[in-house]
């Protein structure tokens, strides 16, 4: 049952991705509003899938790579939908939904067995730690998409090519502002995730910090975004350089989330 809803959600994200990408190449004035509605439908189905899995497993369904990637995608969809209805930028979906779909696809390809949690990890820290971490990651993911939009639009302006996509991307100032806001939203969450993670580790294993690869890479990601904010506030870096840093930061997010688990050995099962 939960699996079925999961597949429906995946299908919705896929459909929205395809329509969104087609929109990019269509010389139409406004991208079709259908993209956001399909995504919203996918988001609701996805929520149902998560709730059902919670009921079936009897534990918060963020305990395996499959589950946490799925939760990551859901958080990203949430942030996308909020941004869409806040800023009404039709073309936004064409850049963000493919990311949601890819994370979801990764989740779909990972083993779906429900593994009961080891007693050491059964605590309410799990909920806080993972929610903070994935909402933060989701904000950085959307900031990456917006950063790409910024770089494309900035290139149009500098190269003085003012047709096609240029007409449909919003002004660069709003893109810069959105990406800044996303980082000021995501950064404290990542900070909280690291803190709750340390407290939880103390609770479960007796040490706050063990230089586990996941911990190390979270710290690297944290430092990168701290730099983005610092340089912006102190030196006044904004625009292109800030957008480039967002992209570097997102690569760190990806490595922290996927890379560490597949390439390095970590106590984190997700």
């Amino acid at each position, binding site marked *: 049952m939960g699996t079925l809803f999961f597949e429906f959600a995946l299908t919705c994200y896929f459909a929205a991705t395809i329509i969104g990408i087609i929109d990019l190449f269509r*010389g139409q004035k406004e991208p079709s509003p259908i993209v956001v509605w399909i995504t919203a439908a996918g988001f609701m189905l996805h929520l149902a899938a998560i709730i059902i899995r919670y009921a079936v497993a009897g534990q918060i369904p963020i305990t395996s790579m499959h589950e946490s990637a799925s939760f990551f995608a859901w958080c990203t969809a949430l942030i996308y939908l909020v941004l869409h209805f806040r800023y009404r930028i039709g073309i936004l979906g064409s850049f963000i939904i493919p990311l949601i779909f890819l994370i979801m696809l990764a989740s779909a390809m990972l083993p779906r067995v429900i593994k009961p949690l080891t007693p050491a990890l059964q605590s309410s820290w799990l909920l806080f730690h993972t929610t903070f971490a994935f909402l933060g990651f989701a904000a950085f993911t959307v900031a990456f998409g917006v950063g790409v939009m910024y770089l494309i639009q900035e290139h149009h302006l500098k190269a003085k090519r003012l*047709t096609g996509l240029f007409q449909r991307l919003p*002004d660069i100032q709003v893109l810069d502002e959105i990406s800044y806001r996303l980082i000021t939203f995501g950064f404290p969450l990542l900070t909280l995730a690291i803190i709750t993670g340390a407290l939880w580790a103390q609770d479960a294993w007796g040490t706050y910090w063990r230089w586990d690869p996941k911990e190390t890479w979270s710290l690297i990601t944290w430092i990168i975004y701290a730099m983005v904010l610092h340089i912006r506030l102190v030196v006044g870096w904004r625009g292109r350089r800030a957008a480039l840093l967002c992209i570097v930061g997102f690569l760190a997010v990806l490595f922290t989330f996927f890379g560490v688990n597949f390439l390095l050995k970590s106590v984190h099962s997700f």
Partner: protein
Amino acid sequence: MGILVVGLNHKTASVDIRERLAFNGPKLEEGLRGLHALPDVHEAALLSTCNRVEIYASVRAADSAADQIKEYLAAFHGAPRAEFEASLYCHVDADAIRHVFRVAASLDSMVVGEPQILGQLKDTFDYALTRKTTGIILNRLMKKAISTAKRVRNETHIAENAVSISFAAVELARKIFTELSTKAVMLLGAGEMAELAARHLVTNGVQNIRIANRTYERCCELAEEFCGMPVRFDDYLSQMVNVDILICSTGAPTYVLLKDQMQKIMRERRNRPVFIIDISVPRNIDPAINDLDNVYLYHVDDLQQVVDTNKQERQKEAAKAEEIIHEEVGKFERWLASLDSVPLIVALRDKATGIKQDELEKFVAKHPGLDQQTIAEIDYLLSAVVNKMLHYPTVALKETNGDRDAVLSVVKKIYGLNGDDDE
């Protein structure tokens, strides 16, 4: 029965002639009534704007009606016919329909794609409608002209993108800044184009405007005009820290803003974006400044190029628009042809005979015992009823005077013969 357009526009007539033949104020009503009263004119509408004067009419015979209209124009305006006749164009039937659709879709305008003309055309027909000088043909022509124009606007990009330099500048500013009302503009030097660009920015919400000019008098003059703040010319560099949009047109022989100066300014501005428009020839702003982050420098040549590209785009879109119009003209012609009474009478008879035949066959199928003789008699009886029923409508349709068009449309409606596919 036909549709006729007689008129002149900015392409065919000089301003003198256009002014001479214009129907301004009270002349419009008088002129419209006069045209409607012409013997061969059935329905009439009259458009008079600064760029065109056009008469739309449904007429009995195009040639004689055109002649009467020209004669009327000469008499009404007291202008000898020879003086303006060469500037006039006459379009008949399909060409006339196409012309009206093209005017509505703004393909015939001085600036292709400008939207005002559709509103003017609507007013023209509303005006005629309230004065009862139009009937079913022109009313429908107008309705279709509007829907065609809307189709063109929705399905092509004809009305998008700026086609003048000052509008292109505003459009660019909107792609750099979210909100123009909080941005500061500085006008460095003056010139027609620079002032025009500044004026467009003001109408688009810019409130804070500074003026720097070598001659202080001119500076104050402009400041007053734009409700701006005069700035000493020597201070322009220090002002740049707070200026988001710079319009430069000083006529200086060298650069007035260099890359390293701008770099310093950007640091002080903490990299808030700056849009610089250099309208001067030779350039007043070092083109290398465009390489700096968050600085967008456009020279007048760049803007000209943007405008040229946009114009080309409009031309391309105009070709698409012509196809849409071609299609719509075809539809309208089919409707017009269906107004003709002969095919309608035939269609009416066909329909009635068809119904009679169907009912007869059903009856025969239900009563298998009937012999040929009886069937023939029933057939005869039904035919007689059908013919009697059709007699009066047929006579009414064959009448050529009076409200023939109205009769045609009523007959079509009550017998369900509307060959019109989109209603």
